[in-house]
């Protein structure tokens, strides 16, 4: 436990969070943050690259994700992409978003 105490501080994490928020606001100055994007907004704001698209489709089929669940994954993936200053949503972002699902 002691060995782990050299972890990143809140200030450093906060800096990345503020950056990600800024990118969301640049995209939608008066709109919602990623967590509240609607389906049509997601289609515009979260363009998937080919690999990401394939992964999301496979996952949706394997895990039997509902439409709502797919959107939820995509919203989280959009945020992960924002944290990594990527304009499009890539395979790695979708993969990370999928593992935050409570079951599966």
């Amino acid at each position, binding site marked *: *436990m*002691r060995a*782990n*105490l*050299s*972890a*990143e*501080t*809140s*200030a450093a*994490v*906060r800096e*990345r*969070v*503020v950056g*990600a*928020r800024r990118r*969301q606001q640049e995209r939608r100055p008066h709109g919602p*943050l*990623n*967590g*509240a994007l609607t389906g049509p907004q997601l289609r515009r704001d979260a363009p998937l690259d080919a690999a990401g698209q394939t992964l999301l489709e496979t996952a949706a089929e394997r895990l039997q994700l509902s439409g*709502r669940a797919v959107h*939820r*994954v995509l*919203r*989280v993936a*959009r*945020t*992960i992409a*924002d*944290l990594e200053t990527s304009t499009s949503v890539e395979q790695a972002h979708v993969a*990370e978003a999928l593992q*935050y*699902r*409570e*079951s*599966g």
Partner: protein
Amino acid sequence: MLARALSGTVFGLDGVRVEVEADIADGLPGFHIVGLGDRALQEARERVKIAINNSGFQFPGRKVTINLAPAQLPKEGSGFDLAMAAAIVNAGEDRDLPGDAAWLGELALDGSVRAIRGTLAIVAHLDRLGARRFYVPTANVAEARIATAAPVLGIGHLRQLKAHWEAGEPLDASVVSEAALPAPPPSVDLGEVAGQPHAKRALEVAAAGAHHLLLVGPPGAGKTLLARALPGILPPLNRREAVEVTSIASCVGMLPAGAGLLELPPFRAPHHTISPAALVGGGGAAPRPGEVTRAHTRWPALAGTPFCRPASSWWRRPIPAPVVLPATLAESANARRSSDSATGPDCPDRSAIASICRSWSPDNRRASSCART
């Protein structure tokens, strides 16, 4: 003889315009208040009468009737005292009060004016309806100024009004006693949390995109500790969010007297045996906001929330939907937004991000997960 004074109250979280009419007529001396007032409002009879007499005015020895319009709206609280006193004194002298001046405040028996709840919401609403002058308790001036560009005049004592009306003395528009803002919640630094890299990352993602977050794990795994680290990684509120947060705090009586805009996101940690109504709001005649509303911003945080029934079945609705409307209260408190919860493992609900806190063990090889599969 009749006089009217503009005032207001809160219904849920919204300001409502209320007109206070005072009539003085011949008949047996008495003081009646009509217009669906609650107990605190009925007791205003004693407060207003004694405060008027103790401030150099004379309470009329005739039949005094107060009507609060709209009459069908249930009204509560003590915020109409000042409007009633102003209307009664002016009715006695057959003088008209300006129709665009609003009066808010509770009276003490000696005539001093006490702070009320919901000033921000009421002033904002009356400002939209065209009120151009606000008389409010001194302790609520800073709050009222957030909501309007019109003159806000702080009144500390009824005697100031007497001097104002009779000798033309100006009311002091500058008195603002800046109170200390509430201390920020004790925030845990992420650097002090050992292990749990996966959950820390989930915290970061949720904070960045304002996603719902559910922390699941056995007792002692660190869920609450991680939740307490949240305020430390959140960006400050923008102006609109800050106004909403301040208005809610004011409506539920959590805004310190004299305080202006709150700039920190709220953090609520309700007890895990909390009732459904206390969690999402509810009430009888007038709806009351619950913990979800008190935690409102774009990204509120609740720690230790129960996800066991029956609270969870109420919780189900606020998570995907932006507005909670209990079926019986169509005009209810706009209990808005979602939350983040640290909770025990028996969770029937789903969040966008469910991070599993693993039991800590010296080498993490024996880490056990308690996620339901």
